[in-house]
């Protein structure tokens, strides 16, 4: 039975140091929810508070509105997958998976049926009698997952489960995890520092920094309309350029970038100060630039070109010396030579405009 998880003004302290100050968040029933952030941002701490391995110094943690703060981990009916898998090395694959069921005093026949069923779901039934040391990393990962979900937990918690796998296996496993989660339909909280992984598996993502949630949203929302410059730079690659917002001829807001590039940005009139201008920062993703030989745009010189097969990365030095990154589909164009003068236009509607401190996205709430 899946549950909704609610955090209400949750506080975590180690001694006098506050690691998480008053955090509130609602995770919906059956949702695949990811906590994403750089190391030390408090995401694992938060996950372990849900699991019950970390104490809660303030606020309430609720499963379906039932306060869980002081319920011991074993009584929370959670399934947890650990970063290092934490497979019991002295127990076989099926004994590992059966461990939680034995603790729940499940009858022998049913226990066997459920173990086999879950091993089938995670596709490791052929290894059921093996010892863990004879399994590959990916297989151990599947055992850990099976062990966590076989007990029909209310919540599945996963702490950087893929970080010990190599790149190709990581992609395979995240697809498997997503598939299994959909099949089982269980509320899942997933912790990772890998933004691509987060986008691949999540229904919604919370981006965290220093114990504070910066943004909660769907992968697309977070990528295309980051709440602030931290989120914009942490998720994917982006170019941050200083610009000026001014009032145009008809009172509309116009963005001035560099010496000669102007871009109308509808809906930002309210941000103009009484003086009629505002210093802003814009964030443009590498694929949001359109490269041309001439026409309206930022002018610059190609200083590096990197052919990567699927795409080609260009580094262009702007007039003020700032270098920006551009990604082109390799199939559509020739590789541009180093030293060529180019013009960079921004795809209409994609630009995100931030206040000068980069703390607020002025476009946020506007349609894409």
């Amino acid at each position, binding site marked *: 039975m899946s549950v909704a998880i609610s955090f209400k003004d949750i506080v975590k302290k*180690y001694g006098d140091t506050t690691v998480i100050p008053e955090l509130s968040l609602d995770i919906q029933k059956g949702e695949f929810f990811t906590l994403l952030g750089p190391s030390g941002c408090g995401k*694992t*701490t938060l996950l*372990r508070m849900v*699991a*019950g*391995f*970390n*104490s809660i110094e303030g606020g309430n943690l609720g499963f379906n509105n039932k306060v869980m703060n002081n319920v*011991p*981990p*074993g*009584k*929370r*009916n*959670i*399934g*947890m997958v*650990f*970063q*290092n898998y*934490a497979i*019991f*090395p*002295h127990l076989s694959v099926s004994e590992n998976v059966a*461990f*939680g069921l034995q*603790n*729940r005093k499940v009858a022998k026949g049913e226990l066997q049926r459920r173990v086999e069923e879950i091993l089938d779901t995670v596709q490791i039934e052929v290894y059921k009698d093996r010892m863990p040391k004879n399994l590959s990393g990916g297989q151990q990962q599947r055992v*850990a997952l099976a*062990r*966590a979900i076989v*007990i029909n937990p209310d919540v599945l*918690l996963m702490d950087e489960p893929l970080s010990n796998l190599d790149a190709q296996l990581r992609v395979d496993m995240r697809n498997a995890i997503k598939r299994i989660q959909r099949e089982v339909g269980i509320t899942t909280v997933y912790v990772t520092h890998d933004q691509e992984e987060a986008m691949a598996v999540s229904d919604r993502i919370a981006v965290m920094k220093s114990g504070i949630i910066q943004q909660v949203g769907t992968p697309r929302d977070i990528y295309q309309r980051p709440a602030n410059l931290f989120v914009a730079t942490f998720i994917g690659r982006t170019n941050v350029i200083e610009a000026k917002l001014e009032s145009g001829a008809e009172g509309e807001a116009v963005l001035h970038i560099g010496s000669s590039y102007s871009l109308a940005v509808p809906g930002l009139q309210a941000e103009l100060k009484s003086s009629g201008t505002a210093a802003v920062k814009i964030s443009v993703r590498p694929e949001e630039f359109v490269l041309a030989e001439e026409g309206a745009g930022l002018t610059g010189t190609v200083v590096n070109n990197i052919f990567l097969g699927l795409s080609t990365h260009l580094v262009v030095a702007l007039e003020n010396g700032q270098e920006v990154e551009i990604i082109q589909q390799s199939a559509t164009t020739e590789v541009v030579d180093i030293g060529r003068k180019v013009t960079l236009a921004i795809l209409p509607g994609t630009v995100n405009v931030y206040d000068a401190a980069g703390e607020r996205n002025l476009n946020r709430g506007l349609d894409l």
Partner: protein
Amino acid sequence: MSGRMKRWDIWSLITFIIFAGYLVFLALPLFMLLIKSFFDGTTGEFSLAYFHKFFSKAYYMNAVWNSIKVTVSVTLLSILVAGPLAYIMTIAKIKGSATVRILILISSMSAPFIGAYAWILLLGRSGVITKFMSGVFGFSMPDIYGFSGILLVLTLQLSPLIFMYVSGALKNVDNSLMEAAESMNCTGLRKMWKILVPLIMPTLLAGGLLVFMRAFADFGTPMLIGEGYRTVPVLIFNEFISEVGGDDGFAAAISVIVVVFAVTVFLLQKYVANRKSYSMSALNPIEPKKLKGIANLAAHAYVYLFTLLALMPQAYVAYTSFLKTSGKIFVDGYSLDSYRAAFSKVGDSIYNTFMMASITIIIITLAAVLIAYVTVKRKGAVANVLDTFTMLPYIVPGSILGIALLVTFNKEPLVLSGTSVILIAAFVIRRLPYTIRSSAAVLHQVNDSIEEAAISLGASTMRTFFKITVPMMISGVFAGAIISWISIITELSTSIILYTGNTRTMTVAVYTEVVRGNYGVAAALSTLLTAITVVSLLLFFKLSGKKEVTM
């Protein structure tokens, strides 16, 4: 992950019980010793008289100097002998090196005083080698008694420890470090001195400390081969035991001085070692190469000669145990007389040793599992104090612990003197560290999340411990327990203080038979001890899958 939930659970209770045990059987006795040394034995008033007496009489200061001379010489000589030995065995292919390593290990596991008495049989006034040399060549061997004998016996006995420590450290030195040095034209002795020695220095210091403490605390060797060369443990024993003029208070005072000295050395070593420690793990360990010509010959000669010398005492004792005896004298021919005599005369000591060692090892195994768990997984103030308690027996010499226990438990409310309980308590306290260290080492490898996984799957604290944690640490526990076992059955310095007629152990019996000149019985018992040690070691190798022992 720090900041795990702290709960008052079953572990708090277990910690408390173990803590209480250490308070009663270690802290209290040491405290009583301290009290005794500062209060006059007859008037019961506070007095510094004992300390004044000790520091003002040349007789006592002499013993201190003797002890320091012996200890420092043994430590340095052990390093000089065993350091090159370990180096040679690491870089050079030696024929039968696996066997050599096991033989060296076996030689280090016997009680030192057996070495002392064996060397008397070999090189003493009427020793076989002495007689042979003077009879055949008319050559008189140098005197084995006194300082030189103690030095010989203890160096041969203790240098295997340095050998094992240094071998372990050299195994962790990456060969690419050596190659990097060579690529920068730093070769030969200069490479060793500039690269290798600094890298293994912390290990050398740790091994040196162990040798220092053992040599310092050893009682049997100077007693047997010293012949009037008094060291501090001999002094303490005489003051405490001697029937005329024995003085508990004075023995206590000397003990306090010794403990203070030992703690100082320990802290000094820790301070130096901490400043010079590196963490190393070798991807490409140094591979032994086949040496050529004279170097190959010299390497083999050195390794074999050392092994021969180290094993000689035990081998010779074993040989004499099968000699025919007539009374106390060995005569021509072979027989099992000595064994028969041993079983009939001192058979009780064999029974006592097995009975007490078995009870001890059961307690040690249980306690070590719990203590290792508490100190590794339940860090906190109490666990830290517990950790320090478990280290103390490394520093406090066995005879001093014996005296401390005796002065504490020879009167109401708890009279234990003369019982096997007091011996078992002493054995547990002294030999527990081996099993704790070995168990803790395994436990350090067990990630916290393994237990969290079990708990998250609904297992209780105790079920998690017994179903998950204990099975994972069991190999380390057994390996450590075997080492504890061997060190219990070869223990002398505490037993000699605490034993009475009913609780005599095999080592005590060997010692007293040697003193009485009953060499046949002593040899039979010693050989029995060696046999048990070898069997236990083989069991250790099988269980741990290792070829070395960490002490």
